[in-house]
């Protein structure tokens, strides 16, 4: 049966700190980047690429976000949140599938 371990605890500590620590951007902005949700253009373009097509991020994507008013420190934080968000969703999806597979595989699971 999968359970908490040091790896998961370290990942959770990283995610919780990045989302909730006092920082340059607000916790609400970071949550939106983490969830890739309700972001204004052109930040939405950059963050969506970080989540779904990171190899296609261009200098122009970053420059457009800066020209819309975001500082480098703000973009540093929001890009990290977006990357962590997608990673976290994949991690949780994998762990949930493992939990389901191990529960289904138990001798008493068919009753």
């Amino acid at each position, binding site marked *: 049966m999968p359970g908490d371990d040091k790896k998961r605890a370290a990942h959770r*500590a990283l995610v919780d700190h990045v989302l909730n*620590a006092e*920082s340059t951007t607000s916790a609400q902005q970071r949550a939106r980047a983490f969830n890739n949700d309700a972001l204004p253009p052109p930040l939405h373009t950059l963050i969506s690429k970080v989540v779904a097509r*990171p190899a296609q991020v261009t200098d122009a994507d970053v420059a457009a976000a800066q020209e819309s008013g975001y500082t480098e420190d703000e973009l*540093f934080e929001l890009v*990290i949140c977006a*990357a962590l968000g997608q990673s976290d969703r994949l991690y949780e999806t994998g762990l949930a599938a493992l939990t389901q597979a191990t529960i289904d595989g138990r001798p008493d699971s068919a009753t």
Partner: protein
Amino acid sequence: MRLDLLNHGYRPGTKLLFALIRAFSGHPLPDAAKLVFYRPGFYGARAKTFTHEAMRGPSAWSIGDRELMAAYVSKVNESAFCVAAHTATAEQAYPDSAKVQAALTDLDSAPIGEPLRATLHMLGKLTRQGTIGAEDMRDVLAAGVTPEQVEDALAVCAAFNVTDRLADAFGFELLSPEDLEAGANYLLKRGYR
């Protein structure tokens, strides 16, 4: 890197450390290492802890296996910097360049064990499609992988789904073959802390 602060925004002591590393090793600090020195209280310190635990913490997977997983996930994400860095590290760790190259070129025919092959397929599907189900996991378990090994592989996958994205979003500079070898050697001696 695309953000100027990641090239020049470090404290004087950190800049001195970068210069000393370059002077003594003969190699520049890779951008992946520089990144975790920028405002480490926000991201770098805890990111290093998690990545080191995933890549070097207790596990039934060898270090070579985990470096190959990192390279494989990075290949799915098309992250050139991370593919190169972790291919080089896996090749040194096993040490077996042909095996690593085969696994990254054609996983089905590569000379690796079935548990590792099934695990790499699962990590690839999860990273590529963003979804995976119990049936996929049952296939991995049926190949002889323990639930604990699956958890460990998912931690590697999580670590490199962050690093790949940051490498490409921030525009990490690709390393020369000599710098890749030196970086791989460092990661095998010291890990990710």
